[in-house]
């Protein structure tokens, strides 16, 4: 029975390593621009979308108003995912990964700048 504990431990560790290795096979990525505005909306959408079929990775960000979803191609498609977002009452305008990266980058700079600005005021 003690071995069972060991097996469990190995499983946990193995699980955590294999994940990084197995990525990107048969996966599709889709990005959207949305209109969330608030953290609550971000949370709601995150909790909702992560349980859409085949979703493997997900980033929802209200600051840049973007959604990034990686999913198993066989289980879902871009259109159904967009519908899921709309069902929760948010805009789902499809954008390219490049546009997504730019938006996120832009919003990060935005935050950064803001930090400096505060310093200047004091």
């Amino acid at each position, binding site marked *: *029975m003690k071995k069972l504990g060991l097996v469990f431990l190995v499983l946990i560790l193995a699980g*955590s390593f294999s*994940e990084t290795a197995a990525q990107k096979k048969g996966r599709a990525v889709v990005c959207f621009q949305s209109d969330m505005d*608030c*953290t*609550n*909306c971000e949370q709601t959408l995150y909790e909702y979308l992560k349980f859409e079929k085949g979703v493997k*990775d997900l980033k929802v960000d209200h600051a840049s108003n973007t959604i990034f979803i990686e999913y198993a191609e066989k289980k879902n498609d871009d259109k159904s995912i967009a519908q899921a977002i709309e069902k929760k009452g948010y805009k789902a305008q499809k954008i390219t990964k490049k546009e997504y990266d730019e938006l996120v980058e832009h919003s990060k700079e935005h935050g950064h*700048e803001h930090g400096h*600005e505060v310093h200047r005021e004091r």
Partner: protein
Amino acid sequence: MKILGIVLLMSLPFVTFSQVLEGTVYGNEDGEKQPLPGVNIYWQGTNRGVASVGDGSFKIKKGPRDHMLVFSFVGYEHQEIHVHDLDPVEVILEPNIELGEVKVVHKNRGTYLSAIDPIQTERINGAELHKAACCNLAESFETNPSVDVSYSDAVTGAKQIRLLGLEGTYSLLQIENMPNLRGLATNFGLTYVPGPWMESIQISKGAASVLNGYESIAGQINAEYKKPDADEKLFLNTFFGASGRLEFNGNGNIRVYKDVLSTGIFVHASDQSKKNDESGNGFLDEPLSRQIQVMNRWKYNNHKGYMAQAGFNVLTEDRLGGQTAFERGMEPLITNPYGINIENDRLEGFFKTGYVWPNQRTALAWMSNFSRHETRSFYGLNHYDADETRFYANAVLTRDLDKSGAHSLNAGVSFIYDSFNESLYDNKMEHKEQVPGVFAEYTLKPSDHFTFMTGIRADFHNLFGTFVTPRMHLRYMINDHVTIRANAGRGYRTANVISENNYLLASSRELKWIENVFQEKAWNYGLALVQKYTLWERELQLNAEYFRTDFQTQLVVDRETSASNIILAPLDGKSYSNSLQFDVRYEPVERLDILVAYRHNDVKQTIAGRLMEKPLISRYKGLINLNYTTNLKKWMFDYTVQFNGGGRIARYPTENLSIASASDDDEFSPYTVMNAQVTKYFRYWNIYLGAENFTDFKQKNPVAGADDPFGPRFDATNVWGPIKGRRVYLGLRFSLNHQ
């Protein structure tokens, strides 16, 4: 740098061309402004909002019709401001008196050590409570390094906790910051707090603040129930144990009037009707039991400084244990099998209220609770019946003494009324405690890095006279990585000799006691060092702590003097506990949290004229807890292993004093217990499957003299290890939030 500034300034118009309001949110921490991250900020009547970031700053888009900006954050008073233009705003949130204890909670970690609180405190939140089957408060500590949970005896199913190696009675148990589950509820009280009802637990070690009373010698454990104005609308939980345990928990919140008045309804039912005797000694490993509990609580908050909460709780419980052949309805007779029956009925009520003056510098809080508890029980031929009526009230005035809030004062009055009627064997006993008290506590917090808190209280006890309780706490943050804490304090406690030790009746030895109510006194000192480092971009937490408790008077359970009695007598000599603990928390791989802890217990007591190790206490405890969640937290895996050290078993005295030479029977060996659980999350519900004690380790012969329970050697109270073997369970949780 200048050029960078100019560049930034130049690019500013491009990012702020839409109307954006900026500002910073602070929390008032004892009069000092502390940036407050994570505050929800939104325009009233809309769902457009943001959260403040690390330095408390935020940015929010302002539409033409947006005027009222709302700030809300758990543990702080809700605040609204009127916005006319786009000038940066600065807002200071006042801590909510009712939640004064709660500080910013780290989102993903189940347990964390606060660096802000002057008292060494561990906080267990909802995430951690999901890690164990967690049927009730007693089982919530499985993954916790500081609290030990053990069986009191082999027949009643009562569980007790130990903090710093000392019995749970030396820790102040609170529900929502009010003392609770004491007196008659001492033995089974931990099973009266259903896990799914709880929102969080705080464990603080060492003598606590005087505001909470003169008790809390070893520490304080506070459980917070879910709040009626929380986001959760409905929660349901069912649990099936392979050993025949069934459980149902549910709670629902109703917003009666906007966010001003809300109510929560809580239900719990559990049942064990399958007889288990894995050890084959003819005794049930756990009693057949049934518990039903209902609670209703209300909360009123006008968001202008006034708040009130009230509620009540009804509980009924029945336990039937002993020999497997003992059936419900059988008379406790020597001609029948040995049986144990315990019936508890309990009614509780509470009311608390608070008001914060508009200048935000003065606050008044009132907390009170009431309980009525009735017990009818027999352990073989021993009958114990009792009832208890208890009332507690506490009024505290909090005031900042200066503008910066570096000096603040808490002062107030309290009152305890506790009335007992008991009957055991042929004795009828009653006693009544009436204790008015006054207290004051001064806090010096000149900066974020330093807090000094000292308090004193005087209580005027109708039985024990006047006594004074001094307490002191110090916290110093040496640098960003190292925080040191020290505390010293005196504590007192009323030992209700019979009600707290009635599980000892599951023995053929008759209880012998001198007084049925008795005051215990002790000093407690502690030193703790918390270190936080960033190692490969992840936080590494190291904690070391040492606590010492010295008893001047104590109730000693003496099983070693007499072969025919268990003697409950006042301490005559020394009694102390040294507890040294180390723990390390780290995330070596993404989403894998590891906790490794070790504690050394040195608990000694003068029993029968000799300073000896207190029996049935492990000399050390090691714990490893692993928690892994998959990406997006769809699966969660938990594994805990506890290494419990050996300890002493009370020597059974023989009539001719030729004590069997230190045989194995005087000592129990170290043992290991493992628990594991897998949880799968779905959108509205989750399912968990686990096993407790899956290596199936059990104490051998937990019931001495099991073959002759009415004979002189019968004793089911020498318990040091698990009685129940492997327990596989399956549970479901369903939750629905307010949108």
